C-alpha cells in the first residue's frame, strides 16, 4: 500500500529547518570538541616541545630529536628537583592520608562535643589563600627557630593536604551503610575484625582517591613551598626559576611523562573497576 504513494506526495522538510535540526543535534559535540581543544592544547604543546632540539631556550622549534627523552636528567638540577618533589610528595601523602583518614572516621562516625566545629575548622585550610598560609607557616617556623628546608616543607604540605583527605574520605564513609558493620558484628567479628574485613575494604577506594589527590596537590604546590623550602629546589620551583632564562626541554619531558603516568593510572583504575562490576 504505502509503496504506491509517489515520492512527490511526501512533504519535504525545508533546507533551513534541516540545518537547524542538524545543529540542534550536534551542538553539544561541537562544544565538546572546542572545550577539549582548549584544555589539551597546552598539554599537546608541552609534549611536542619535549622533542625540540632546543639547546638553551625551548621557545622556538629548532628540529626533532629523541635526545631529551633519552637523557631526561640532562639539564642541570632538573632531576634533583624532581627527586625532592617526589620525596616530599610521598611523605606528605603518607602522613596526611593516615591523619586525614582518622579524622574523617572520627567526624563521620562518632558523636562528640565540638564535632560540628571540627567539621567546619577542617575546611579552613582549604579556604585560606595559599599565600597567607605559606607566609604564616614560615613565620611560625621562624618563631620556633626552625630553618626553612626539606622537613618544614613536608610539614607544610601535610597541613594543607589533610583537609582534602578528610573531605574525600568522609564522603565515602557517609555513603557506607552502617548496617554492614552491624551485620559483621552480628556474624562474630569483633570491633577490630569488623574494621579490617568490612569497613576498611569498603572505604579503601575513597582513601586511595584521597592519597592520589594529596600527592598531586603536594607535587605541584609552588606558593607554600616557595616560602618554606629555603634553598631546597622542588620541581615547580625549578620551573619557576628557569622560566626567566628559558625552561629546558627536559622539563617538558618530565611534565609529559607525569601526564602519561597519571593517565595510565586512571585508565587502569577504570578497567579494574569495570572488570569488578562484571
Amino acid at each position: 500500500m504505502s509503496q504506491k504513494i509517489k515520492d512527490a506526495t511526501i512533504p519535504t522538510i525545508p533546507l533551513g529547518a534541516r540545518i537547524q535540526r542538524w545543529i540542534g543535534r550536534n551542538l553539544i559535540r561541537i562544544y565538546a570538541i572546542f572545550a577539549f581543544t582548549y584544555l589539551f592544547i597546552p598539554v599537546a604543546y608541552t609534549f611536542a616541545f619535549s622533542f625540540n632540539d632546543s639547546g638553551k631556550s625551548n621557545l622556538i622549534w629548532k628540529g626533532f630529536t629523541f635526545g631529551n627523552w633519552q637523557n631526561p636528567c640532562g639539564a642541570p638540577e632538573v632531576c634533583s628537583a624532581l627527586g625532592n618533589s617526589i620525596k616530599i610528595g610521598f611523605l606528605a601523602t603518607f602522613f596526611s592520608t593516615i591523619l586525614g583518614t582518622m579524622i574523617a572516621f572520627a567526624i563521620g562516625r562518632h558523636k562528640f562535643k565540638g564535632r560540628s566545629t571540627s567539621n567546619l575548622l577542617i575546611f579552613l585550610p582549604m579556604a585560606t589563600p595559599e599565600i597567607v598560609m605559606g607566609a604564616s607557616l614560615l613565620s611560625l617556623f621562624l618563631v620556633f627557630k626552625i630553618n626553612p628546608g626539606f622537613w618544614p616543607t613536608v610539614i607544610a604540605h601535610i597541613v594543607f593536604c589533610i583537609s582534602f583527605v578528610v573531605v574525600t574520605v568522609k564522603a565515602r564513609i557517609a555513603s557506607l551503610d552502617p548496617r554492614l558493620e552491624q551485620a559483621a558484628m552480628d556474624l562474630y567479628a569483633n570491633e577490630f575484625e569488623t574494621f579490617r574485613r568490612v569497613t576498611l575494604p569498603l572505604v579503601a577506594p575513597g582513601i586511595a582517591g584521597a592519597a592520589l589527590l594529596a600527592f598531586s596537590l603536594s607535587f605541584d604546590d609552588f606558593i607554600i613551598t616557595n616560602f618554606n623550602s629555603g634553598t631546597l629546589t622542588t620541581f615547580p620551583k625549578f620551573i619557576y626559576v628557569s622560566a626567566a632564562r628559558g625552561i629546558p626541554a627536559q622539563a617538558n619531558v618530565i611534565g609529559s611523562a607525569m601526564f602519561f603516568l597519571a593517565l595510565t593510572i586512571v585508565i587502569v583504575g577504570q578497567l579494574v573497576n569495570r572488570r569488578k562490576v562484571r
Partner: protein
Amino acid sequence: MAKASIEARGDLRLTRLTKTYGDFTAVDDLTLTIPKGSFFALLGPSGCGKTTTLRMIAGLEEPTAGSIHLGETDITTTKPYQRPINTVFQNYALFPHLTIFENIAFGLRRRGQKDVKEAVDKVLNLVELPHLAERKPTQLSGGQQQRIALARAIVNRPALLLLDEPLGALDLKLRRQMQIELKWIQKEVGLTFVHVTHDQEEAMTMADTIAVMNEGQIEQMGSPAELYDNPETAYVANFLGQSNLIKGIISGNDGDSLIVDLYGQKIALPKNRSHAIDNSTYAGIRPEKFRISLLETPVHGNVLTGGRIEDVSYIGVSTQYQVEMPWGQELMVFEQNDDGVAPFNKGDAVNISWAPTFTFALRGDEDVTAGSEVQPQDIDEE
C-alpha cells in the same frame, strides 16, 4: 564470659526489658519467653517497639533496664559477636565487596573454622542457589539476596535466628513463596526463629506463636488461631483481620454462658471468652462467622433482627455485605459463595445469626477503632 555466652542454648527470656530514647519509651517493661525451636513473631505497626526489641536481642542496642537470658546464661551486656544469635537484616546487608561464598563463610571464618566449603555448599543447596557462589551481591535479584542473607545466618547454626522484616522488600508473589520456604527451612534446620513484621498475614502464615505489640508492650500473645479467634483487646481484634464490635451490657448468667444485651436484643456467649471487667462490654464477631437470612427463615444460635442490606460486593470466593442495624451501626458480613450467586440484594430486610461460641467480649471502655486505622501496606518501617 565470651566463651560461655557464645555456647549458650535454650529458651530466650526477656525480663522487664525497657528501652528509652530521651522522653520516648520504645520498649516498655517487656517480659517474654520464647521457647527453643519455635517460630515466634513480633507483630505490630511501625514504632511499636518490635524492631528495637529485636536489636536488643541481637546486641545492637543496649537495654535501658531489664535482662536478656538465653537458657541460663545472662547475655544482656555481651557484645553482638559474643552471642550465638544471627540476624537477617531488613535490607539484607550483604557485604558488597565479597563474593556470595565469602559472605556466607564470613561467620564461620570469624569463629575460626578452617574448612568452610562443605558447610557453605550445603546451605547454598538448601536455599537452592549453589550456582551463584562466585557472584557479587549486586549481581543478584532481591529474592536471591534475601535467600543469601538467610543462608549467611543459618550456616552458623545459631541458637536464635532473628528476622527483621525479612520479606518487606519483595513483591507480593515472591513474598508468599518465601513465607512457605522460610517455614520449611525453619522446620528443616530446627532453629528458633524470631520474626519481626507489621504484616499480619505474614505472621499468621509462618509463626507458631505471635506476640502483638503496641506502644512498647505486648498486647496479646498466642497461636495465630487463638489470637484471631479470641482477641482480648480491640487493638488485636482490629489489627488481625476485621471485627464487628457491638456495644452491649452484660445482663445475666446462664450456666457457662453470659447473656449480653445488644441494643435491646439478647445474645449469649461463653464465659471464658469474655474479657470484660464490669457490666459494660463490646461483643465481637468476625465477619465470616455471621449468617444472613430473610426474616421468615428459622435460625439457631444468636440472632439480631432488623437488619437491612446496604451494600453488596461480590468478590468471587465470597460476597461481602454491609448490613445496617436498627441502632445505626453497619455490620460487615462475609458469605461464602458455595451455593453460587449471592442470594441477597441491596435493600433486603434480614436477620443476622451466628453460633454463640464464636462471640468474644471486650472491655466496655475500649477504643473500638484501636488498631484499625493502621493499614499494613501504608507502613514504612523505621
